[in-house]
């Protein structure tokens, strides 16, 4: 099998996903174009060498619809021979896009492919695409559908994480993100979003709240208590799938869950031949990747089995991985992953995560893979694993090693 190498990775900064967020004025196509142009220009890449652009996007409707990957490739000025495809693996879309890009290379069917993703959550809000899973009674009821926040609270309840535990984790995420920004650890990969005149619109992650304390978090009401316990009463649905739980402890709120933000990412992958042709040095090799399905109601426990599957394929064990990145969708997701696999906190999300910096759904997977690679290089470490929990009960994981 051909090896797939990562040649470069970029991301935009993450703007607050609200009407007053800095990137709200920027169309999602423009966000994706920013990432695609940056990865081309940094490497002086002849885009005619690229076979395909695979972009994750979770709300592929409205201005993110009609295959935004192809639109963005054309608008970025890529050679018209470069194809484009948009994929949706919910929260892991960006990583899945990268894995699919790698798979094209590894199968020998493509020599170079760009993976990545885009999401303007301020312009195309979550839930815009509907879907039968929550809405169609013939699907929602037998699947015991509950919103992710209820699932996250169920994870916390079932695996014993208190409000203090999840809040403390959130504060650490904020601290680590602040430290990483202050020391310039993200500089290598973050490309500012600019307007048509070249004027900078945003050059940093604007969702961060480094001043957060246990006291300030304590004042926040749990976000899903009302929906869970009163209207419409999702807790009763979850308990039917988890009857051993008496009552769900609602611990998650805006301060210990991922932020809603806008952003885009891109990763350039190719075989060794491509690197030689393009005059590029590979930064890492894709060692293994995997996606799995897990129980859909608790929904967010997929990263552990996905990681185990990828590790097995790579012939590795948990301890063979030097650094981990797990998307901080909710604090309890990360706490459970560390508990389940026995991973120390100092190997996990060492530069913070989505609780501090935000989770632009379709883009995040490729963002955290890039973050992981940067930090492996900075620390001189060999192996890393990036993974995400996924709606409807899935997990995707990717293992990379430096070359």
């Amino acid at each position, binding site marked *: 099998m051909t090896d797939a190498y990562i040649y470069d990775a970029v991301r935009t900064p993450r703007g607050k996903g609200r009407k007053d967020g800095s990137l709200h004025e920027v169309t999602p196509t423009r966000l994706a174009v920013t990432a695609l142009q940056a990865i081309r220009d940094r490497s002086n890449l002849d885009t005619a060498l690229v076979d395909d652009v695979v972009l994750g996007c979770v709300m592929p409707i409205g201005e993110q619809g009609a295959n935004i990957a192809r639109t963005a490739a054309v608008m970025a000025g890529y050679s018209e021979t470069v194809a484009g495809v948009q994929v949706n693996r919910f929260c892991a879309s960006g990583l899945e896009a990268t894995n699919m890009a790698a798979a094209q290379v590894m199968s020998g069917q493509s020599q170079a492919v760009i993976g990545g993703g885009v999401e303007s959550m301020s312009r195309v809000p979550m839930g815009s695409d*509907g879907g039968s899973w929550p809405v169609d*009674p013939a699907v929602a009821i037998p699947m015991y*559908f509950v919103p992710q926040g209820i699932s996250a609270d169920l994870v916390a309840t*079932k*695996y014993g994480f208190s409000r203090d535990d999840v809040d403390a984790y959130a504060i650490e995420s904020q601290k680590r993100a602040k430290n990483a920004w202050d020391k310039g650890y993200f500089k290598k990969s973050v490309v500012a979003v600019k307007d048509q005149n070249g004027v900078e619109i945003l050059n940093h992650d604007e969702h961060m709240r480094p001043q957060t304390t246990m006291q300030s978090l304590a004042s926040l009401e749990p976000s899903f208590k009302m929906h869970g316990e009163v209207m419409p009463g999702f807790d*009763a649905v979850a308990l*039917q799938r988890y009857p051993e*739980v008496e009552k769900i402890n609602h611990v998650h709120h805006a301060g210990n869950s991922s932020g809603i933000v806008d952003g885009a990412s891109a990763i350039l992958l190719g075989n060794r031949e491509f690197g030689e042709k393009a005059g590029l040095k590979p930064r890492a090799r894709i060692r293994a990747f995997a996606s799995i399905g897990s129980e859909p109601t608790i929904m967010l426990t997929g990263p552990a089995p996905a990681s185990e599957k990828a590790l097995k394929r790579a012939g590795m064990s948990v301890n063979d991985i030097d650094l981990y990145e797990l998307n901080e969708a909710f604090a309890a997701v990360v706490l459970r992953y560390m508990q389940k696999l026995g991973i120390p906190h100092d190997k996990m999300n060492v530069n913070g995560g989505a609780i501090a910096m935000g989770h632009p759904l379709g883009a995040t997977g490729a963002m955290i893979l890039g973050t992981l690679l940067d930090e492996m290089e900075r620390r001189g470490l060999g192996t890393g694993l990036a993974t995400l929990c996924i709606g409807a009960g899935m997990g995707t994981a990717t293992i990379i090693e430096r070359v």
Partner: protein
Amino acid sequence: MINYNVDSDGIATITWDMPDRSMNVLNEASMTAFAEAMQKAIKDAAVKGVILASGKADFIAGADLDMLLNVDTSDATALMEQFSQLQRLFRAIETGGKPWVAAINGTALGGGLEICLACHYRIAADNPKAKIGQPEVKIGLLPGGGGTQRIPRLIGVMNAAPILLEGKELKVQEAKGLGLIHEVVPPGELLARAKAWLVAPGTEKVAPTWTKGVQLDARAVQPWDRPGFKVPGFPGGQVWSPVGVQTFIGGNAMIAGKTWGVYPAPKAIMSCVYEGLNVPFDTGLKIETRYFVSLLRDPVAKSMIRTLFFGLQEANKLARRPQGVPKQEYRKIGVLGAGLMGAGIANVSARAGLEVVLLDRDQASADKGKAHCQADVEKDAGRGRLTKEQAAEIVARIKPTADYGDLKGCQLVIEAVFENRDVKAEATKKAEAVLGSDAIFASNTSTLPITGLAEASVRPANFIGLHFFSPVEKMPLVEIIVGAKTSQETLARSLDYVQKIRKTPIVVNDSRGFFTSRVCGAYISEGHRMLKEGIPAAMIENCARMAGMPVGPLALNDEVAIDLSYKIMDQTRRDAEAAGQKFEGSGTEDVLELMVKKLERFGRKNGKGFYEYPSDGKKRLWPGLKEHFRERADLAHGEGPEKREVADEIEKRLLYVQAVDTARCLEANVLTDPRDGDIGSIMGLGFAPQTGGAISLIDQVGVSKFVTECDALAQKYGQQFAVPQMLRNMADKGESFYGQASKAKAA
């Protein structure tokens, strides 16, 4: 049956008036006759408009459930065709090109309402007794005559939800408020007003979907057949609008949560609404018929119809009453013991118009019992359910006293004193001393055998058990226990009393725990056994709800009191020892001993049971349970799908342990009719209604399969699942309870 009449103004009146029935119902004969009349009205060029009316006090009560119970469900295609006919018939009303008015003089339920909804205009008489609604969901069905399609299109999904999903019945004014009915008029003006609407000149013309552009009098066109129709309540009429999506997401969760996933009908109704509103009206009707057929083929509907409709009706008509005994009219009764049970019995009796002597050992205790009744009656008066005068009359009928002499003239005395033989014997003797020779003396004991208690009586033929359930005001069942010497006349007259106070009776023969207490005990014991096995308490309780029980066995034990369970167990053990017999316990006596003797956790009554009862919030499982009953790690912390199998088995055990014990009651002649087992289990114990009752469950599973499964459970968990020989014989012969019962009925 269906009268057809056309007046000089060209207004046809089709009047439903089925012979030999007090109510009009939809069945094959009436539908055929109606179809003929309808065709006539549509074809006759002289007919300008049609009034649909009733010749009875009520409009149409719904479909003939006998027909639904006996319909052959083996061929889905044939059922689809059969019930599509109904849809086509109703659809023909609204697409016939002539305006139809439903003149709703009284109750219109189920198909009776659906036929009105197919009319273009609905006028109701201002009849306070009239009930408007779709009760199908309560018997496991859905409105299969277009109700799930027309109602949401008429009044929006949110407004339709309680009508379709809960079977909520409306008064005519409420129905008008929602837009289900257009006008409410004085009863005497109903037909005149209907005619006036029809003969008034039409002012508007529209081209309905079904005329391909030809314009018609708008009054003859339903809203959903007009161009540009939008479902009310959703922006743009779209399911896939933010409001529409949220409505269904929330509605799905509410159905799943409230029903614990037990009932198929609400899910099917929700699907009819969701899927139907995404497609044209006629396609929606087809979808509705598909779901209707699926419910009809599900054993749940037939079980529910058989028990909750026919079984209940028979019980309330005193099907088990011995013949040849003149009906007893009650005027005055006595209640001994003014505690919660005694006061409750006094309350329901006084509400039924009886004079009640409420006696306790001292006046203050008796007064306290009356105060309970007064508070309850006044609560109803405050809610407008009783007038002030009615409330005052009820309260005035109750005479609290400590003097046995006041019992003079009572036709029936019910004792609800302390559950102790000596105390009861003394009460019996004192009462009988002043009672007339034909008075009945009844004991409200929940467990002590009646034959033994009757030994204290000078006329044991007049001694009977009347077992009420707590709270008496709410619980619909009375379990009548016939002792060895109880006369058939006493039984008949006791049934008359139960009917008088509007409760549902079942009749059982004497035995320890009779039927309900015994089966209730089996349920609770199985919960205790599961705790001992390491099943997390929450899982036991939640699985009980998922099996269809109203409360889990541990919560139920807290309510009936754990120390009471202990005392009953202890008494049984002593009685066995005294009789020189071996005590056959449940094997969970140690749980009761631990809770009562060691931990002094008596249940809700002392705020400490399997649950704890914080003053500032909801009850919750007592965390200390985990110390005494170590939870299985795979269940408490595991995440794999194998947990689902454990949950399924827990559900099965909790129902089967009651069903097999009910079968034993039949074998031992404690129960003499399977219907008493079904009615008694549902009305007395809240046994999973979707099964149709503890005996129907066995039929639903299949006797042979039930025996096999119980044998496996007995091997794994103990003799509480031991199958009575009668069931094995039935399995061998391929018999079923209701196969036999209906055969017997036919013969």
